[in-house]
């Protein structure tokens, strides 16, 4: 009986002091949005004014990606230029989890650009670099800084120190002059590669960023050239009867998918650039055009009106073997064309038409969920940034052809600057120069 009492007492004692496991709370929802970030204007040691406001370029880059919302300059409480100058308690009030500070000083004929990225809540440095830069390269250095910051905060590579190729048309006295240009991804520093009185179309970058394939009408018909950007030499690679167009460089740089109508009507072919061998991909009386590669180089998406109106299809192209039967990918809307697969292979961006309205849409290839990204009316030629986060495309604003960009979630949209004429047919170049950490 005594033992019973003891047991009961012990039990009672135990019940009144339970073992404390960590409480678990599930958080769902939240708001979709860009993460605030404080980017403080960089300090400058030198005498003359700098040609580039580095912090401004970084802020614009990060904003364009759609992932970040740089705080307005007016909200910045102070202007630290390096770690010890930052009072983290003050900055915590603003609610931005990260802060970028930097300073530039003259060094030789150029500059030394230093930047640091801090975690505001923990008060610790996340990353920081000192980059030597020439005066002309200062803008590019700013883009490289954007890439470094973007990569460490998202785990994905940035696409800010990249370039885009595009076509412009300038009309003077009812005469058109067409140019193929290459500019920074934010539209700055445009450099013409080719001028022609005849139309130019469909530029496509080689994966090493050294060459461009494009369509030229200079001999009164469509022909495909490959143009070396360094030597400025070009080769005519397709000039068959009928249409030669829609060149698309394969991810391994060995092949060019293209459209030829020499066999009766426009069909997709794959050209081996080295040995000039041609592999036919489609064979139907319908229009088959606009081939685009999947990142593994094993499949092509293309536009076909075999179902009546243009839709996007997919076909496998094994190295040796029979090409698979094309499989339709798009089912929404009455017109889907110019399909481009994202660098991670998960999404398909396209020109999506309903009635007279043509917009850029993106389709998730796993669940076929389609999202419309733009709200203009005459959009065309979408192209992915190499990190898959932003899309450049051509559109019409006030009767003028312009280039625009939209982030993959459709949240951030920007128009690119342009001096004169119409801009169209943008193609986003690959990442080439990277600062190795």
């Amino acid at each position: 009986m005594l033992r019973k009492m003891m047991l009961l007492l012990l039990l009672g004692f135990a019940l009144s002091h339970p073992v404390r496991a960590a409480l678990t709370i599930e958080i769902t929802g939240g708001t979709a949005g860009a993460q605030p970030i404080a980017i403080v204007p960089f300090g400058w040691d030198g005498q003359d004014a700098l040609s580039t406001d580095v912090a401004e370029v970084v802020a614009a880059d990060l904003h364009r990606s759609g992932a970040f919302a740089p705080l307005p300059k007016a909200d910045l409480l102070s202007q630290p230029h390096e770690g010890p100058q930052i009072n983290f308690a003050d900055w915590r009030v603003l609610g931005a989890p990260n802060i970028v500070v930097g300073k530039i000083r003259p060094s030789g004929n150029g500059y030394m650009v230093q930047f640091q990225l801090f975690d505001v809540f923990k008060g610790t440095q996340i990353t920081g670099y000192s980059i030597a830069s020439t005066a002309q390269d200062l803008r590019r250095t700013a883009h490289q800084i954007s890439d470094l910051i973007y990569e460490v905060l998202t785990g994905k590579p940035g696409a800010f120190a990249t370039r885009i190729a595009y076509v412009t048309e300038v009309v003077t006295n009812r005469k058109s002059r067409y140019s193929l240009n290459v500019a920074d991804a934010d539209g700055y520093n445009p450099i013409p590669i080719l001028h022609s009185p005849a139309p130019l179309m469909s530029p496509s970058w080689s994966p090493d960023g050294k060459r461009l394939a494009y369509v030229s009408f200079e001999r009164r018909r469509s022909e495909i050239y490959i143009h070396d950007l360094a030597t400025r030499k070009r080769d005519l690679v397709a000039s068959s009867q009928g249409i030669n167009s829609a060149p698309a460089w394969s991810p391994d740089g060995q092949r060019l998918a293209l459209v030829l109508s020499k066999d009766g009507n426009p069909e997709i072919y794959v050209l081996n650039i080295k040995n000039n061998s041609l592999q036919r991909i489609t064979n139907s009386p319908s229009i088959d055009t606009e081939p685009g590669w999947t990142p593994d180089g094993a499949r092509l998406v293309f536009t076909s009106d075999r179902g009546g109106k243009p839709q996007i299809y997919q076909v496998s192209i094994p190295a040796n073997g029979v090409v698979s039967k094309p499989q339709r990918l798009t089912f929404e809307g009455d017109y889907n064309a110019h399909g481009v697969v994202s660098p991670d292979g998960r999404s398909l961006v396209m020109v999506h038409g309903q009635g007279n309205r043509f917009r850029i849409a993106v389709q998730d290839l796993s669940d076929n969920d389609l999202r419309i990204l733009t709200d203009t009316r005459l959009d065309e030629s979408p192209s992915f940034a190499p990190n898959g986060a932003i899309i450049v495309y051509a559109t019409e604003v006030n009767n003028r052809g312009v280039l625009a960009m939209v982030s993959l979630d459709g949240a951030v949209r920007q128009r690119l600057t342009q001096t004169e004429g119409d801009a169209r047919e943008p193609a986003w170049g690959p990442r080439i120069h990277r600062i190795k950490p």
Partner: protein
Amino acid sequence: MKSYLKLLMVLVPVAILAGCSSPKVAQKPAPIEDRTASAATPSTASTPATSGVEVLAAPDKGNFAGEELVDPLKDATGLLAKKTIYFEYDSSEIREEGRAIVEAHAANLIKNPKLTVTLEGHADERGSREYNLALGENRAKAVQQLMQLKGVPAKQMDVVSFGEERPVDMGHDDTAWAKNRRVELIFK
């Protein structure tokens, strides 16, 4: 001829700026050429360099000086003066009025075996450029097929497409679009 002068005017800048003396590439393997399969086509008769391009649609060429008093192609009262066939949106079907024009030209071509025509196909700006390039060709080929049906020998015809690249009307409405959906008959 005027065209040759215009030719020169644009030849020079392109040559300079493109940085290559001629677009020919002797050392590389020959590009995909399929010209030998078909008969000699009129467009290859032009020089390799860029020809002076006329943006305006109404061609006013006539190489028949001395052969006829009145060039039927220039006779404004005749059907042969019409050299453009129009199409419906996203269609390459030749409609009634178009048929009549094509048939008239077909007859004329048969009568003049030395006469050659380039059928230039075009599309309006809606949709993607590459698809429109193919659509333009479809339209030009439709005209070619009808002509062949009427007895015109293949060697007298050539087909080329400019897609939406050479509109006659730069507007962005139905009127402009209707004017741009066309096949033009270009005679040399």
